[in-house]
């Protein structure tokens, strides 16, 4: 939908719009949650983070979202150090969905989605026509328009997750950072949500970093996979590179096999 | 709950009295009916007793029911209107009564600036930085006299009181000269001791008897302390303002060991309003005279 890009006028996705980590480290007391990590994350693609529990994937995504402070090293975004960004300009560039979405008692779907416009209009600015249109489009895109006037808490898990995604879409950022967006969903809804993310990347040219538990889902939807183990990046590559018996053994510490998806040809893993 | 109900009944009474008083305001009474009895609203019990002592009937007194319970004498006449708390009198009632004069204690309760909006106000010092309540009470009487045209009566009252105090002071020469510790029990562990800056201390000075307590006292001339401080004055005679401690306490080893108790130098005297003005001082002097057996 190129006309959207034109209409907003403010959205310019440049190649500079990327995360650069330089010896980024997080430790809590004596425990190191993330070993020094030097890496660059390019825009306009879906990057999956996988790893065992406590491997540091959540820590990494929270770092990118500025939800957690660094204890060592630097991260820059768009050529500027993360902590040099002011809150609202950053929120216009990067949207984040936490692992557990908060309780929203009393909020209507449309009201929640409209909150996504905050970084653009701020505390005092008028909620203008432009904002209104972005909200409508976001709801359209995520297919939540039909229950716009329902209370968020009355929706099912999958519907609710789509509403939150709609809020992120309305935020109209270059990047989506999603922390296990599918963890509470059944298979059908997982596919639904991840397809939506895929579509957003393709239609709007968004960059996405997504934490996923299921390596097969990661293989199916991501352009690139980062695998972490004990706070260390141990592998990076396309699904083809990562989903191999040897790599999976290293990542999850259990013997696994890989075969081809009969329809798409994606690699599919299974426990031996 | 005898006290609480008592309190509430008093209010009912007051309201009826108040209605009567209001009726009297709005009935066409000739302006010259009682020229020599001005309508005075009193916010401090010290001034209430002072008025009564010089034959002026206060129209209204703050916490009148409690006055009858605590100050007792001189008795408030029936029909005296209750003005509410001494610290926060009912301003609306005060306004409705339209008194000729409001008497308050300076530095206590509602500020005179607000009272003046309602009626002419005399805010007289009693317990103040000067720490001479007896002198302040005498001055206040004179001021009230000047304001109400009662100079004659007040002068007579003060002269009589003065000669009475002189007489008591003469009697006091028969006293053995032991300094006094005037105490009141707050519970069975702590006592208030009356010293410098208090009315009782001023009276003792006036009649020439020494007050043993030389410790610090607060703005109102007393200190709250344990019995061990009392024991610090072994030579003193104990004057206990009733009610004393519970009977069981009087049998306790600690009480019995007090030097004054061991040597039988303890007298009980009936209660007097502790923070009063001139009449309270006179009453205390008379009570003390009887209590010390120097009559």
């Amino acid at each position, binding site marked *: 939908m190129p006309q959207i890009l034109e209409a907003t006028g403010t959205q310019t996705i440049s190649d500079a719009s990327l995360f650069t980590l330089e010896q980024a480290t997080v430790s809590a007391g004596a425990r190191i949650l993330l070993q020094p990590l030097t890496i660059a994350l390019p825009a306009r693609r879906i990057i999956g983070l996988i790893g065992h529990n406590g491997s540091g994937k959540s820590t990494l995504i929270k770092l990118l979202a500025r939800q957690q402070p660094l204890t060592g090293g630097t991260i820059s975004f768009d050529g500027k150090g993360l902590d040099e960004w002011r809150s609202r300009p950053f929120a216009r560039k990067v*949207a984040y969905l936490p692992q557990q979405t*908060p309780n929203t008692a009393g909020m209507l779907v449309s009201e929640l989605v409209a909150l996504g416009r905050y970084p653009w209009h701020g505390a005092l600015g008028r909620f203008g026509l432009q904002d209104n249109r972005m909200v409508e489009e976001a709801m359209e895109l995520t297919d939540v328009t039909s229950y716009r006037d329902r209370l968020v808490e009355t929706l099912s898990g999958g519907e609710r997750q789509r509403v939150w995604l709609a809020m992120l879409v309305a935020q109209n950022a270059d990047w989506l950072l999603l922390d296990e967006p599918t963890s509470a969903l059944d298979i059908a809804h997982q596919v639904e949500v991840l397809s939506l993310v895929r579509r957003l990347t393709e239609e709007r040219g968004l960059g996405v970093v997504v934490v996923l538990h299921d390596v097969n889902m990661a293989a199916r939807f991501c352009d690139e996979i980062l695998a972490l183990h004990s706070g260390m990046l141990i592998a990076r590559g396309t699904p083809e590179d990562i989903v191999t018996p040897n790599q999976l053994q290293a990542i999850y510490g259990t013997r696994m096999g890989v075969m081809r998806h009969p329809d798409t040809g994606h690699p599919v893993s299974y426990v031996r | 709950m005898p006290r609480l109900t008592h309190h509430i009944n008093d209010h009912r009474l007051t309201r009826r009295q108040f209605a009567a008083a209001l009726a009297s305001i709005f009935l066409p009474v000739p302006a010259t009916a009682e020229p020599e009895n001005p309508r005075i609203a009193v916010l401090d019990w010290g001034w209430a007793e002072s008025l009564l002592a010089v034959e002026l009937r206060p129209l209204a007194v703050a916490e009148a029911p409690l006055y009858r319970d605590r100050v007792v004498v001189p008795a408030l006449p029936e029909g005296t209107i209750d003005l509410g*708390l001494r610290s926060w009198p*009912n301003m*609306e009632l005060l*306004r*409705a009564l339209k008194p000729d004069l409001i008497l308050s204690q300076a530095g206590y309760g509602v*500020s005179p600036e607000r009272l003046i909006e309602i009626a002419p106000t005399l805010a007289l010092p009693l317990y103040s930085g000067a720490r001479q309540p007896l002198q302040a009470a005498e001055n206040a009487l004179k001021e009230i006299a000047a304001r109400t045209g009662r100079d004659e009566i007040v002068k007579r009252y003060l002269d009589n009181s003065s000669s009475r105090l002189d007489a008591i002071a003469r009697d006091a020469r028969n006293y053995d000269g032991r300094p006094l510790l005037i105490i009141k029990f707050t519970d069975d*562990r702590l006592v208030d001791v009356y010293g410098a800056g208090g009315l009782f201390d001023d009276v003792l000075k006036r009649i020439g008897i020494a007050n043993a307590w030389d410790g610090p006292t*607060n703005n109102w001339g007393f200190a709250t302390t344990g019995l061990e401080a009392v024991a610090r004055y072994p030579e003193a005679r104990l004057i206990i303002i009733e009610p004393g401690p519970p009977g069981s306490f009087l049998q306790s080893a600690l009480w019995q060991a007090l030097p004054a108790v061991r040597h039988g130098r303890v007298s009980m005297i009936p209660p007097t309003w502790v923070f009063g003005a001139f009449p309270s001082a006179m009453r205390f002097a008379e009570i003390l005279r009887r209590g010390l057996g120097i009559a």
Partner: protein
Amino acid sequence: MSIRLMTPPRICALIALMAIALYAVAIGDRVPFSDVPRTLWQPNPASFDQIYVHFSLLPRILVALLAGGALAFAGAIFQQLLKNPLAEPSTLGILSGAQLAITLLSLSAVTVTVGQREIAGLAGGLAAVTIVAGLAKKSNFAPMTLLLCGMVISFSAGSASVILALFHHEYLRGVFIWGSGSLIQNDYSNAIALASRMIVLIPLLLLFYRPLTIISLDEAHARGLGLSPAGLRAAVLFISTLLSATVVARVGVIAFVGLAATSLARMAGARTLRQRLLWGTLLGSALLLLADGLVLVGAPVIGEVPTGTVTAIAGALLMLVLIKNVPHSIDHANTDVLAYGTSPVGGRHVLAGCLVIAIAIAGFSLTEQLTVSGVDPSVLFAGRWPRVLTSASAGAMLAIAGAVTQAVTRNPMASPEGLGISGGAGLGIIAAFFAGGMVSPLLPLAGGISGAVIAFAIILIVARGKSYAPGPVLLSGIAISALATAMISLIVASGDPRASYILAWTMGPTFRATSIVAIIATMLVLIGLAISPLFRRSLEVLPLGDSTALSLGIDPARTRMMLLLFAASLTGVATMIVGPLSFVGMMAPHIARVAGSRRPASLPLTAAAIGATLMIASDWLGRAADFPYEIPAGVIAAFIGGPYFLWVIRSQGRYASRS
């Protein structure tokens, strides 16, 4: 000193040594060293000093040891049972409940025996703990809810005591002297009574040792291991309350000793329940002994200060320090989202309705002639409009502050009064009276404002490390308010004739209002209302949590601070007008939500109208209920607000258990 050097036995020994040194000074002051053994066993009846040491100081030492130990033991049990490191007899409302019951008893009977006092204390303490536990049960004893219930019970009981004192301070002085926790003894009766009750109750509680260790797991596990959590809770709560109430009845309110002792024990490494019970109890004894030793040695210099006052001050300060050690679960325990009504009535209709009611009540209050008759209406009006307008303004300010506070703390039961601002203002007023007397009404006003500002600064400093998270903010409020309560007890106990005046000032009587005050207050409300739209969007986003706020470009810490500053300013001003405790700040936004004002944008406005209505009505009730005596409007509102609060917690709990 490194923390590892501080083992429980060492700390205990250190504190005990300091206390013993102080008592040695006090005894040495009385009796020469050579006479001490004889004095202890067989004092010379002819020597007052020996008798005093034997019959006053020795029992005093015993009572301090026993009372401190009992309170700390009860505290450790409460903490284990309720899984809340800040539970103790005072934070659960037991001490204030017992005190109120004993105050009522003293007013209703001419003489009160110690036995009667004990029964009354017991009844009051049990009533308080039953209400607190009954309410907290609905939320499964969530730590924050429990503390809030305890705080409200304490506040309500405390304000009831203060209002009784306001009208009866002449009679109640003895009660308040006792209530402020003086350890002065004249014989061994209290020591014997405490010891005999502890000998029974403590072993009885120890019978529950094993079940208590199991209950520290969650309830499902406890049940799986064959335990009835409800039965256990009831039995243990009952016996521990007996233990605490006995101490209250005998020596008065000694707040925070249990908390201080158990926290110290835990910090020193007492990990298991056994260790905490043992060392907590010993530390409780040692700490109270130390506090009392300080009071005893200091008495000749600073006068008789009740030991309970010292522990309240030290305890409140300690609580401010402890807040940073409060486990994570408490900071974020209460993420109950505000219960917005789903009534179809729109916010605008609610607002209009409230305004109509407010104007109707104001009109009635301005013109009625029920208590005075035959007075020219214009005179009545001239006397009344300042207080009506002032009440309305104060109610509106508290309501706006309440709406903001509830959004910031994400707690529908939060009340701006609980921020400690009000307590700080009260303390400031009291301090101003003691410093400058009654010279000018401006002095207490200045005192109140500085008190509120200082309290707020303390809260900011304490809560900063926690990015102004809701839990710590509320806890600092509890600490400061406890301090204010202790100071009020002290004033009544002092016998100063100004007590009722000072009490009335701190209760914020609206009848004090002048036309200037009324106009200023109204202007402040208008300013507040004008500013509040600036916070509208923050109020929408903050309840969704820090992650969401951050990801939308809102700095949660800074925004919370700004909002708190706004709420605190309004609360501070309102406190000067209607006193520290009205619960209007809690009630008004809640009623507004229930009535259907759902949107954060319209909520402050509707709440303000409701708050104004509540306060105008309270002002009138306070004027008419006990004519010619005026009951401060804030107190009347608190009498309505306390029960309302309890009802809200009940229905909140039901929500929680349903979903």
